[in-house]
């Protein structure tokens, strides 16, 4: 929900004349698409400009080998910048699970530099390091048992990670390591004069801000009084933007001066890199030489543009690199504004060019070079060395945790709109779903439900009896999500505000007062979620007796938590605001992470730790997967936005955040009926399935587009519900392993280069391949079915297709091309009811798709669907396998205990041959014959009503 249209539409006309004028001004210049001028380019971000100006190959850093200390688990070594003699401390750790951690900080910083807390789930356990050899040029260390070594070269400093004779990754190989040490500000002219005059001077400077002030510069250089003890910066230039920076009308005072860090990584043999969400761009990251680097800085971008590297709402500084041999990852643990440059020696080459190189044998090894630049903090980087994609996922999960295991209901369909106007509206939409026999689990309330944008309250007229409303939903086993944003209305009659203010929990401005910005409620302050005591207090506000009108079927949505500040620089918070000892500059990208963390904690606490929370967030950071779901923010009702939802969610999944979705239908603008239907068909196969719409768009509940389209949407939603057992099992798996749920093809087919850049189709788990229709008026799609030894079954027609081919699939409006992998078993519940909770005890149908070896495997996971009791081993987890004409269910978790009423009502075996008889053997040793039906045209064998309990041991023999 971005600034302008929302603002314009919620304020009353007479109160918003100035805003309207502003809006008109904006609107007239650009009616649609992001106003790029609101957001910085690298050139407008002083540190990025400064860093990017550095040329490779001139590294001033030298490793002081004599300072090396090696304990069992940790190597330390000093680096020196030969230009200014500032010393850095390098720490190197070998972490369990094939991860190497490299930390670089100033040896003696003037004051501490920010190290990101709370993102790592624990201090990562280390493994022994050992010295292999050492001379005056460098050191060679062994990285554990695998034949991996680290070579530290002294001059210039450089770090190479080798396996055998292959270089996996090199650090500072291009010499772009920089570490702007903290320094005292030299006496400048503006320092000497009184503060009043200084501010006047500042203003004057601002007027002429395009050039550095030469006089001040000279004075600074000339003044000997203020040298930091270890620095000798005769050669250092004070550049513009080091001590103050202005963007548009916003001035950023920089009391700590320049503090940027940067490091380059070379990835030999790599042509494909992924990750570093959030960007509205292709799955495969592009080289950035001809434009801006990819930017990571959580921002509320109004009407974001597609296919560019601009920052969006969230930031996960994790990049994956992949080739047919190996997958690796780089996790750059830094919460400040960050830019990532990518270059490649093959980027410019055509396929023909590459072929020519190959034929001539003259090719240099392909290589991708990456450079990370952050505004402050330290270098703390985790090199995840794979070698398989799944190893990287597990390595990253070992650092930041896995996807939280959500309540089953949250995998159903969510109906949202800004706004459902009042209780009656909610009730009638709810009734509409029943009337049109479309299932849904959650209805959502956006900001208008509150009393004047005071979160934790209700509009006294429109939502006078929220518990009645919630009870009405509960009676239908449905739930509600109400929005709670982190900006708090400054209003002395508002309890939440008064408490936060009196406890001193607000973020402070640079002068020590409570920071105030402009957001939905008007003037608002922002709780300091970086304080654990603030988070605890916030969590306590979700208690049923604190949050009036809340009930156990009400969950929470955290929006605007970048944080969005309408009148702030780049629509966010001033970087010089203060969080205790730290500046906002140091911590910015973590704000949304903490908001969601505290909210999720509140939902857990209110149930006494029993119930799983559900919290949706717009802003996120590494580790946000532990607290709930994210969505791709304020997209638009356009076909390209439908398409981009695939790479956007795939990129998030690669960095651990699996519970991802895009607003179905598009947030801004009004979708054509065709687009809306196609979006439902897409959304039904993405992890988080929520329709949402802007306040100014016409209604678009699924039944408003004629019976035919209602039927198409109903069918898409029903397909989602039949697959809920599979989705739930995928989430359980993701929760256990950190593997993405919605995953790119290359994750499962890492040796097939044809999959490396595919982002118009995706896999759900291993076994379902989805190629949604994303073209207007499409008559067909061409799907790539991967795997030369695979077969794929169309889940609707059961037609079998071979793998490793591009398959043209004719489509109609009802088509959602989905394929089940031969060799898999997928459980479904085909009795679709009005909500997932209503389906709890329903029987399962098993879809067994045979591969070329006539085998198949799958799992079945069942628990109560909403509590943490699964952590106490209260679940059923079974392996289903088919081999040698025997289908069997065996317990994967013998120590777990759970009983279910669900049974197996049907087994559908795809690619089967006709048996003469089918025998079921249950755990009590009893045999019984099963009726079956065989469709010879499609080779589909259907076993009628085997009837065994879903938690039991059994075998079915085909004879």
């Amino acid at each position, binding site marked *: 929900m971005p600034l302008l*249209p929302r603002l*314009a*539409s919620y304020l*009353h*006309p*007479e109160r918003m004349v100035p805003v309207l004028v502003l*809006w008109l001004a904006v609107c007239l210049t650009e009616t649609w698409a992001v106003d790029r001028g609101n957001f910085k380019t690298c050139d407008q971000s002083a540190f990025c400009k400064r860093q990017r100006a550095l040329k490779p190959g001139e590294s001033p850093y030298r490793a002081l080998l004599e300072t090396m200390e090696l304990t069992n688990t940790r190597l330390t070594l000093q680096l020196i910048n030969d230009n200014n003699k500032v010393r850095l401390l390098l720490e190197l750790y070998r972490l369990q699970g094939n991860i190497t951690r490299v930390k670089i900080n100033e040896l003696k910083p003037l004051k501490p530099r920010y190290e990101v807390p709370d993102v790592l789930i624990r201090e990562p356990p280390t493994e022994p390091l050992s010295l292999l050899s050492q001379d005056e040029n460098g050191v060679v260390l062994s990285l554990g048992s695998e034949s991996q070594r680290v070579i530290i070269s002294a001059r210039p400093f450089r770090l190479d990670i080798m396996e055998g004779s292959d270089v996996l990754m090199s650090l500072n190989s291009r010499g772009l390591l920089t570490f702007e040490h903290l320094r005292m500000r030299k006496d400048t002219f503006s320092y000497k004069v009184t503060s009043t005059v200084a501010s006047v001077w500042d203003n004057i400077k601002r007027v002429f801000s395009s050039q550095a002030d030469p006089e001040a510069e000279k004075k600074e250089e000339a003044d000997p009084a203020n040298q930091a003890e270890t620095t000798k910066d005769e050669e250092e230039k004070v550049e513009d933007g080091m001590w103050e920076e202005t963007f548009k009308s916003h001035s950023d005072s920089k009391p700590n001066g320049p503090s940027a860090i940067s490091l380059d990584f070379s990835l030999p043999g790599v042509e494909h890199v992924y990750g570093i969400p959030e960007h509205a761009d292709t799955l495969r990251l592009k080289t950035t030489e001809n434009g801006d680097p990819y930017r990571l800085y959580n921002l509320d971008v109004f009407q974001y543009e597609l296919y560019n590297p601009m920052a969006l709402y969230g930031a996960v500084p994790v990049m994956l690199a992949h080739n047919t041999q190996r997958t690796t990852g780089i996790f750059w643990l830094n919460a400040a504004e960050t830019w990532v440059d990518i270059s490649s020696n093959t980027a410019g080459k055509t396929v023909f060019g590459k072929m020519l190189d190959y034929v001539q044998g003259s090719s240099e090894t392909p290589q991708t070079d990456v450079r990370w630049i952050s505004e402050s903090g330290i270098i703390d980087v985790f090199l995840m060395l794979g070698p398989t994609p799944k190893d990287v996922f597990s390595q990253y999960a070992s650092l930041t945790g896995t996807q939280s295991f959500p309540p089953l209901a949250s995998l159903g369909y969510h109906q949202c709109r800004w706004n459902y*106007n009042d209780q009656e*509206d909610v009730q009638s939409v709810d009734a509409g779903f029943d009337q049109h*026999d479309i299932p849904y689990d959650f209805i959502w309330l956006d900001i208008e439900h509150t009393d004047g944008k005071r979160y934790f309250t209700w509009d006294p*007229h*429109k939502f006078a009896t929220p518990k009645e409303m919630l009870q009405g939903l509960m*009676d*239908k*086993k449905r739930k509600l999500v109400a929005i709670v944003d982190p900006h708090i209305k400054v209003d002395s009659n508002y309890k939440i505000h008064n408490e936060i203010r009196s406890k001193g929990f607000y973020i402070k401005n640079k002068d020590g007062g409570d920071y105030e910005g402009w957001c939905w409620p008007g003037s608002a302050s922002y709780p300091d979620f970086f304080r654990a005591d603030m988070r605890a207090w916030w969590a306590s506000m979700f208690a049923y007796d604190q949050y009036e009108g809340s009930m156990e079927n009400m969950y929470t949505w955290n929006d605007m938590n970048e944080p969005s500040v309408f009148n702030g620089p780049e629509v966010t918070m001033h970087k010089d605001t203060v969080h205790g000892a730290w500046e906002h500059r140091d911590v910015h990208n973590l704000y949304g992470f903490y908001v969601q963390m505290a909210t999720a904690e509140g939902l857990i606490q209110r149930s006494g730790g029993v119930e799983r929370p559900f919290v949706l967030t717009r802003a996120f950071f590494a580790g946000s997967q532990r607290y709930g779901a994210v969505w791709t923010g304020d997209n638009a009702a356009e076909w390209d936005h439908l398409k981009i939802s695939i790479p956007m969610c795939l990129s998030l999944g690669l960095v651990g955040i699996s519970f991802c979705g895009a607003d179905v239908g598009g947030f801004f603008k009004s979708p054509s009926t065709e687009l809306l239907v196609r979006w439902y068909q897409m959304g039904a196969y993405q992890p988080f399935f929520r329709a949402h719409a802007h*306040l*100014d*768009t*016409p*209604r678009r509940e699924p039944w408003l587009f004629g019976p035919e389209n209602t039927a198409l949407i109903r069918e898409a939603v*029903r397909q989602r519900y039949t697959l809920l057992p599979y989705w739930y099992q995928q989430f359980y798996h993701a929760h256990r392993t950190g593997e993405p749920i919605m995953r790119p093809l290359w994750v499962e087919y890492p040796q097939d280069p044809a999959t490396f850049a595919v982002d118009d189709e995706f896999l759900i788990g291993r076994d379902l391949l989805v190629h949604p229709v994303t073209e207007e008026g499409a008559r067909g799609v061409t799907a790539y079915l991967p795997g030369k030894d695979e077969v794929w079954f169309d889940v609707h027609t059961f037609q079998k297709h071979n793998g490793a081919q591009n398959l043209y699939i004719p489509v109609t409006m009802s088509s959602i091309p989905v394929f089940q992998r031969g060799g898999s078993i997928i459980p479904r519940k*085909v*009795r*679709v*009811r*009005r909500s997932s*909770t*209503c*389906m709890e005890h*329903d*029987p399962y149908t098993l879809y067994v798709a045979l591969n070329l070896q006539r085998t198949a495997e799958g799992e079945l996971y069942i628990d109560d669907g909403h509590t943490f009791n699964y952590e106490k081993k209260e679940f059923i987890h079974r392996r289903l396998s088919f081999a040698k004409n025997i289908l069997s269910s065996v317990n994967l978790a013998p120590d777990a205990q759970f009983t279910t009423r669900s*049974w197996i*009502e*049907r087994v559908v075996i795809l690619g089967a041959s006709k048996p003469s008889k089918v025998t079921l053997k249950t755990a009590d040793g009893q045999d019984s014959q099963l009726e079956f039906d065989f469709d010879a045209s499609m080779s589909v064998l259907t076993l*009628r*009503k085997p*009837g065994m309990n879903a938690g039991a041991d059994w075998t079915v023999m085909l004879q």
Partner: protein
Amino acid sequence: MRHVTACFRKRKHGEFKCLSRSFKQVLAGFYETGRREFTVLDSDMRFQVIVAAVFWSGFVESRKVRGISSSYKRFYKERKSFLCIDGSKIIPFEQVNDDYCDCEDGSDEPGTSACPRGRFYCTNLGFRPHYIPSSRVNDGICDCCDASDEYNSPAHCQNTCWNLGQKERAYVEGQMRTLDEGLRLKQQLIEEGVLLWREKQAQLRELQQVAEDLQIKLEEHRRRKHEAERLKEQTLKALEAGDSGKGRILMRSCCNPYSITVDEVKTKVVLVHDEERLLSEDEALGLLGGGHQIDLTKFRRTLWDVLTRGDSVKVRSISLHFQHPPRCFFAAEWEATNLKKVEEAYETVNMEISDLRKKLAIDYGTDWEFLFLNSQCYKLKVYEYIYTLCPFNQVTQKNTAGTEVSLGTWGMWAGMPKNQYSQMVYENGEPCWQGGSRTTTVTLTCGTETALRSVKEPSKCQYIMDFQTPVACQPVLKQRGIHSEL
């Protein structure tokens, strides 16, 4: 009912083998068959018949298949096999309601949730029977008021049909009363409407008469004015003739005593040395100082003086004679004023006529029953806004600060073809910020009072109003009401 429930509880998922006939079901069956025949009777009488049927039914033996209406019983006669109703498949009869879907059309599982396209019949004795989707059978939510859909679920459903039936009956009775009263009022309003229509027609005729009279008057006044002008001209000529020796340049007449135009200058002013030649346009314009018309006084005071002084135009010794205008001049003025007045009156009347015609051109229903709404406005306060509906005119919204916004002006009737008078549309209200303009759709419902009942804005700038009025009552609704309710 207790034995029936007990019987249900015995079943496991699947095999429903309750052979004992249920009181309720038989009763339901009779109710169902009775339904079609009794529809013409009033509700009280029907109830008596139903009760009679219930007692009588105790002697009839038949097996009941769960979830079907009696009209479907013929498909479920107990035989060895069952033919799916769509004819697609034959299955053993044991597989009917065995909690596994065999028939594509779901007809083998009317009483379970097994078939995706199935439906379950709620008998709902005492209330309305109806179908629910099979997916609502045993889903833990009470859908049938007789609780028959939750026969194997943890939900504790009460039989609420009797209460609902009573409520429904009370409601229907209330509706009936409203309808009766509404129709009575409507009749009055129709009569009033007819009168009002006639009145308006009379008003129109009256106005038309007035207009005709005015036209006659107008012609008379025009004639008189013309006469007066002619007289004035004569007088002027006479004046000029009597003063011929002095004037070198002649102002031949003065039709308009207050100003002088280019044309006048061209035709009435001649040069002394060449009286035959008329002034050219440019010359005349020059004489007037560039304008096409000039105030006479000003002309005399400025330009004329300049001209006579001869320093800008070389015309020598010219003069113009003006005297105090003679009486005939005043008469002409007087007539002109009178004419103007009459013209204005005529215009006003014509405007009124056109207004009235426009109003009368609106469709006020077959019997002009909506005519009385024409000059009325109805208000409703919803949260912080006051909405005003002035039928056939406009809809507005006023906030607490007093700012009024148009939500549309009268557009058209927009109901379904069956009853186009059930909905009005008001369009082209204040523009919305994202384009388009505010529109309001007014749904008319039957009630004994005429009032605005609700206003909603489901989407931005799209308002819907519920407007209650007796004239929306439809006799056809009354009949349908009786037939469908009970």
